[in-house]
């Protein structure tokens, strides 16, 4: 399966800039989410009503359409850990504070599938349209669904993930004693065009993705089994991208991967449930720039849930 487009909105200079992976800057308290000129992608009247998560997702989707030249994807698949939080909170507060008739807009936009639904509306696309929401594994579940589609009759699948932060998350993190991540809780979106066809736009290949929820076995065994099913061993992997350095000890990850270099992504993506999608975009650009042949994305943002995604270069 070929990755024919990638688009990410993050704290990095990642939008419509192929060189972004060479300009990575760790998040600090002052760094902000980039804001593309959304008017280039969304009509002003519609834009005014849209929350951040919808804007980000639509801009990334349309960017993927442009990059790949695929006007009509055969499926639109989205992963989101917490969905449209801003509109959910807004409507919730309205139900508690307003009397009489409440405006419906934030209710309409509160459902998780507003993202995929809005993409289908913007693209006038009638094909398979789905939303996965399994906290830290939401993106991997979307990817697995995309793989199913490409193994069926579909040729091109638009797949992505998005999450948005609201101030309440910081407040809760503090109360739960998660001080080290508090100012790094943020928003982000990454979308991809996957295809069975290699084109001039192809950047890398997606080999497989796999999840284990409520894991009760050794991560090392799960990784070995996953690689074995794909005819590989850990020695075939040039780089591991991990989104967990902040929450799992360095030693634990190094031990699992032995001599394979592990690159943390969380310090550049920040924390949100679908930051492994940021990792996938980073990995694709590393492969496109020939710095590696095979990359394993290792998602243990939530310690008991494991996500594995295997990428390889076009030549591999």
């Amino acid at each position, binding site marked *: 399966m070929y990755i024919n487009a990638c688009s990410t909105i993050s704290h990095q200079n990642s939008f419509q800039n192929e060189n972004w992976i060479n300009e990575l800057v760790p998040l600090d308290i002052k760094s902000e989410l980039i804001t593309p000129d959304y008017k280039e992608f969304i009509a002003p009247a519609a834009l005014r009503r849209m929350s951040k998560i919808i804007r980000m997702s639509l801009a990334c989707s349309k960017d993927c359409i442009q990059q790949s030249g695929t006007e009509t994807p055969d499926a*639109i698949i989205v992963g989101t*850990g*917490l*969905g449209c939080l801003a509109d959910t*909170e807004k*409507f*919730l*507060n*309205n*139900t*508690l*504070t307003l009397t009489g*008739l*409440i*405006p*419906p807009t934030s*209710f*309409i*936009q*509160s*459902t*998780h*599938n*507003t993202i*995929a*639904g*809005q993409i*289908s*509306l913007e*693209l*006038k*696309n*009638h*094909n*398979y*349209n*789905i*939303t*996965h*929401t*399994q*906290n*830290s*594994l*939401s993106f991997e579940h979307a990817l*697995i*669904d995309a793989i*199913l589609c490409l*193994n*069926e009759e579909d040729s091109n699948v638009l797949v992505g993930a998005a999450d948005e932060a609201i101030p309440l998350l910081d407040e*809760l993190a503090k*109360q*739960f004693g998660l001080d080290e991540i508090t100012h790094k809780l943020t928003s982000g979106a990454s979308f991809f065009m996957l295809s069975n066809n290699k084109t001039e736009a192809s950047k890398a290949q997606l080999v497989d993705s796999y*999840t*284990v*929820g*409520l*894991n*009760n076995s050794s991560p090392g065994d799960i990784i070995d089994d996953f690689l074995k099913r794909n005819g590989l061993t850990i020695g075939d992997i040039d780089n591991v991208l991990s989104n967990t350095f902040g929450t799992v000890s360095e030693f634990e990850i190094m031990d699992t991967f032995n001599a394979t270099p592990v690159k943390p992504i969380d310090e550049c993506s920040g924390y949100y*449930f679908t930051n492994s999608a940021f990792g996938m975009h980073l990995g694709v650009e590393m492969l496109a720039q020939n710095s590696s042949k095979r990359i394993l994305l290792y998602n243990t943002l939530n310690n008991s849930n494991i996500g594995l995604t295997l990428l390889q270069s076009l030549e591999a």
Partner: protein
Amino acid sequence: MSIYITGVGVISAIGLNVEENYQSLRNKKTGIEPINYFPSTKNILVGEVKLSSDDLIAQLNVTAPISRTSLLGLAAAKEAWEGNQHDASIRTGIISSTSVGGMDNSEQYYKQRLESDTPDISLITTHDSGTTTERIATALGISGYINTLSTACSSGANAIMLGARLIEQNRLDRVLVGGSDSFTNFTEEGFRSLMIYSDDWVKPFDENRNGLNLGEGGGFILLENEKSLNITNNKKLAALGGWANTADAYHQTASSPDGKGATLAISNALKIGNINPSEVSYVNAHGTGTPNNDLSESVALKNVFKEKVPPFSSTKSYTGHTLAASGAIEAVYSVLALQHNVIFPNLNYSTPITDTELVPEVNLNESHEVNVVLSNSFGFGGNNSTVIFKKA
């Protein structure tokens, strides 16, 4: 490849298990009543599950904090899973679905936040939809493929479809699929803000229908392939006949007047299942009772079946609209229709919709063999799903 249904579980306004639901459907007994269990001062009609969350926690032997959505899902999943064992050689997963997850607890948290400086923070820990499913998986001892779909009111049907595809592509051998949603003030106010919450009993497919009544509940079915069946020796209750999901791409909430997305979903499901429209014995309609849905769905049925629309009914006149759970609850009803050769009546109907003149089944119909049942679920965002069930 054949995919079999070997377990069913349901909890809704018309019963706490499959048998109670079946008897209510046969006896035209609705579960939609003035609100009683949910703390509310409003005078509204709701299809509530007739048990408090505290009673559910005690019965299911779980610990608080847990959302009512998890509790309803667990009750149904447990019934569908009943008697099954874990076996390392059967790759087993669970796919649940919900539209609002732990909103029942979240809205309590927000209310407390407005009223006090020390809201109960544990209430917000059950908010995310993935956690809703993990609580169900934990109680049943399932680990591995654990996933949640959220496509508003078509979610339950989509969970069934995804489970089937994972089995077809040899990623799983056995998977519990379904969904749950609890009644919340959030969703009630939401549908009211759209002016589609009826203060009268819901009248699906009636010319004078004026909106939906919300319900709550959970539904699950257990899917297995041959390999799994060889080990479990479970009885085949029914088989999956086809499935499809499409996007209406017309409006964020309203369905298109030409029923484009729904027509595509029904016809694609028939095509995937290689089933001729004339083979369909019964359509368990989405039939929410809103002016928009029932018209659009009627048009879609006529588009696909022309002059020969099969007997159809909406069981939401019993349960209310259970949102994400509806596709899963109605999957259980579809299996019951196949098992007992029965078509369930549509309540509160008197006058056909002028534009389409379709007449739903209004009496318990036991006069025909029921071989193929088609179930529709349509949601916000123009998300349209059809799942077909057939005799095993």
